[in-house]
């Protein structure tokens, strides 16, 4: 590692993938622009390329041009005014920095974003990035249904009682959703379910979609249950914020209540986690360069993260959910 004030040297190394933590209520386009403008701001404050030298030939006599007199000429080299930063504008502008997101988060969602910068854009086009399973934690609140899907936005559509909902009801509905999606995954992967190809894909476990058609949920489980709120953890691909909002609405109906979303957080993309992400306070050149180095290491170990499901399925009070279900049946 080398310390430098030279912006052009830094620019050469400003290429790769960076892992950001997007705050809620900021669009992804604004995030991208903020990163670019912070990078430019920091680069322009460093030692940038000096103006190109301009060769001036002057005669000793001030009012006579050099070619019209036979007296001595003086050659002067001055920095060119045409190349002065105050004339041309800053050396580094946002339009020159290329950025490309792996996936998008909605306006009110927060969480991990993978952004490829300059050369990293080509890396990001790689299909393996798009097939890294993403983990979301969705907060759900029972009791009210709104037309927007968020708990504090839009008009209240309906209210329903919720005190009767037990945790095992949520886990049952989620398990069924998860199982139903494994079947849809065949269509999105472009194979007929009765072919040998489909059989081999199915043996491998999780089937990755080839198109950006529909969302595929690989795992859906209940994390925290404290009425009227509960949190579910979803491992998905091809998801959108709208999909989660309508899924939560449907979940509310299946639970004989009404539900809205309180939060959507992307907490993992493949083996990129929250611990690798840059918070918005650290969106500057130094931190981004450090993060790029970290991400390049993670990219080499590029793999799907598989949740540790060996532990018992316990609900909030510590009881085994399966035992509870057996007792209720």
């Amino acid at each position, binding site marked *: 590692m080398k310390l430098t004030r030279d912006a052009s040297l830094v620019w050469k190394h400003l290429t790769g993938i960076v892992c950001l933590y997007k705050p809620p209520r900021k669009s992804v386009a604004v995030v991208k622009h903020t990163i670019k403008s912070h990078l430019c701001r920091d680069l322009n404050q460093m030692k940038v390329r000096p103006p190109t030298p301009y060769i001036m030939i002057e005669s000793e006599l001030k009012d006579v041009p050099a070619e019209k007199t036979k007296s001595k000429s003086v050659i002067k080299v001055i920095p060119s005014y045409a190349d002065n930063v105050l004339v041309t504008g800053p050396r580094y502008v946002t339009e020159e920095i290329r950025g490309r997101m792996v996936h998008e988060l909605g306006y009110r969602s927060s969480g991990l974003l993978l952004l490829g910068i300059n050369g990293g854009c080509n890396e990001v086009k790689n299909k393996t990035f798009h097939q890294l*399973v993403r983990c979301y934690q969705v907060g759900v609140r029972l*009791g*009210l*249904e709104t037309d927007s899907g968020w708990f504090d936005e839009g*008009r*209240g*559509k*309906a*209210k*329903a*009682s919720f005190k*009767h*909902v*037990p945790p095992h*009801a949520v886990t*049952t*509905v989620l*398990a*069924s959703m*998860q*199982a*139903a999606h*494994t*079947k849809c995954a065949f269509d999105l992967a472009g194979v*007929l*379910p*009765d*072919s*040998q190809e*489909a*059989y*081999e894909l*199915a*043996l*491998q*476990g*999780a089937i990755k979609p080839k198109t950006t058609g529909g969302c595929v949920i*690989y*795992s859906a*489980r209940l994390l925290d249950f404290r009425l009227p709120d509960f949190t579910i953890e979803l*491992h998905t691909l091809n998801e959108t914020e709208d999909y989660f909002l309508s899924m939560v609405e449907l979940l509310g*109906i*299946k*639970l*004989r*209540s*009404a539900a809205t979303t309180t939060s959507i957080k992307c907490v993992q993309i493949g083996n990129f986690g929250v611990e690798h992400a840059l918070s918005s306070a650290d969106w500057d050149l130094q931190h981004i360069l450090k993060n790029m180095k970290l991400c390049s290491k993670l990219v080499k170990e590029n793999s799907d993260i*598989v*949740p540790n*499901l*060996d532990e018992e*399925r316990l609900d909030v009070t510590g009881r085994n959910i*399966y035992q509870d279900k057996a007792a*209720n*049946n």
Partner: protein
Amino acid sequence: MIPTSILRVSNNCLLQVNNCAKRHYGRIMKRFPLYPDDTPIEKIPEYAFSKPDKDRRHLFSWGLCEHGAVGILRQCTKRSKKDTAPRYLQRPCRVRFGDFNRVIDVACGFGFTLYAVSTKSSLKVFGTGINTDSQIGYQSQRKDAPMELLLAPVPIRLPIDPHENVAALAAGRAHSLILVEREKGKGGRVLTLGNNSYGQCARPIEEGEEFNGSKMVHCVEGLEAEAIKSVACGQDHSLFINNRGHLFSCGWGDDGQTGLGVPGKKGSPSRVRGALENVNIVKATSSGDCNLAISDNGALYGWGNSEYGQLLQDHAAQIYSPVKINLPGVGPVVDIAVGGSFCAVLNEKGQIWTWGFGLLGFGPNVTQVSRPQMIPEALLGKSSFAWKKSKVVSIEAGLFHLAAVTADGDLFTWGRNKDGCLGLGNLRDQPFPLRVSIGATVLKVSCGVDHMAAVCSPFY
């Protein structure tokens, strides 16, 4: 002031619209909102859905509609005279009969279905489908005009006391067995009806007996002075297990399916010996001419047709007396399912082992397996993301296909897709297990030849 009862109804409509109507209602609700813009949330009335009832059951059915065995009248009736194409329900459909009657058990035969209903009246068994041999009882609308085809469930008049329960149902090609218990779990008597040309109804064969429009219901009170705890039907034979774990059979035996040591018809239940001599049999099953039985310690026995190597006895096409089948590496067997040309067993760990001929679950390239082979668990929902605790708890088979139910209530089907009986949404054969999309937790499923029925409980 709008009465709250009307508001509650409106809320109900609001929440239960389907997807196509949602957009239409969305536009209407925007123009005519239920509550004005400035209504605070506190003023919106709170709706309380009906209380969840863990005893509520949903009934789903799918497959060929032509013979009415699915029991959904709307699907089975022709729209017009020109509508001659056969109709298949390729996806599970809710049977409304199950919403108005508490269906506790279902059995699918060859083109007909039996439903056991929990009720205080004596009409505890209903049936639908083909009735050419009175397998669903005597049904008629006019005097002396028995109906040969029922397109919706109808009650079967049986000599059952209102305080008795129907413990089990079994349906074969053209006959039905109903196990009726006085006390739960103590075993009881079996009522048989339908075709008796091979003696499968456990009564003596009468030459020239007319089964169409027959009101005959035979009762088997007990076997060897013990009550009967379990019944099963093959194609044209019947199997009974009494409280002591002894197996009895009657019916057609030319392929050895009665297991009585000799071929031929048998018109009264006789004790099946052979390798079952001193064994406590827990379950026996058959759908064609091959039979399997398991003992209480998980040992497997088989007899009957073995033309496709279903009984793992080399070169024997028919086995007339039960033999013990060794399954190396499988362990104690918990459930069994027999198809026409294949067999499947489920062991304690929830693994399914199949062998025989057909689409056994190993992809389209494998159609014959001579030694038991395990179906990869990843195909039955155990992928890296799935809950490791969820395992298969029961398996069923029709003549050409197989079904498995997991502890989570997922139903997987695979095999030859005869008339859409797999319920996967198309008419293509499915060479490995695929989950059937049913919006409920499947408790019990029954496989017929070209249709299936499932008793489910709602998610919550």
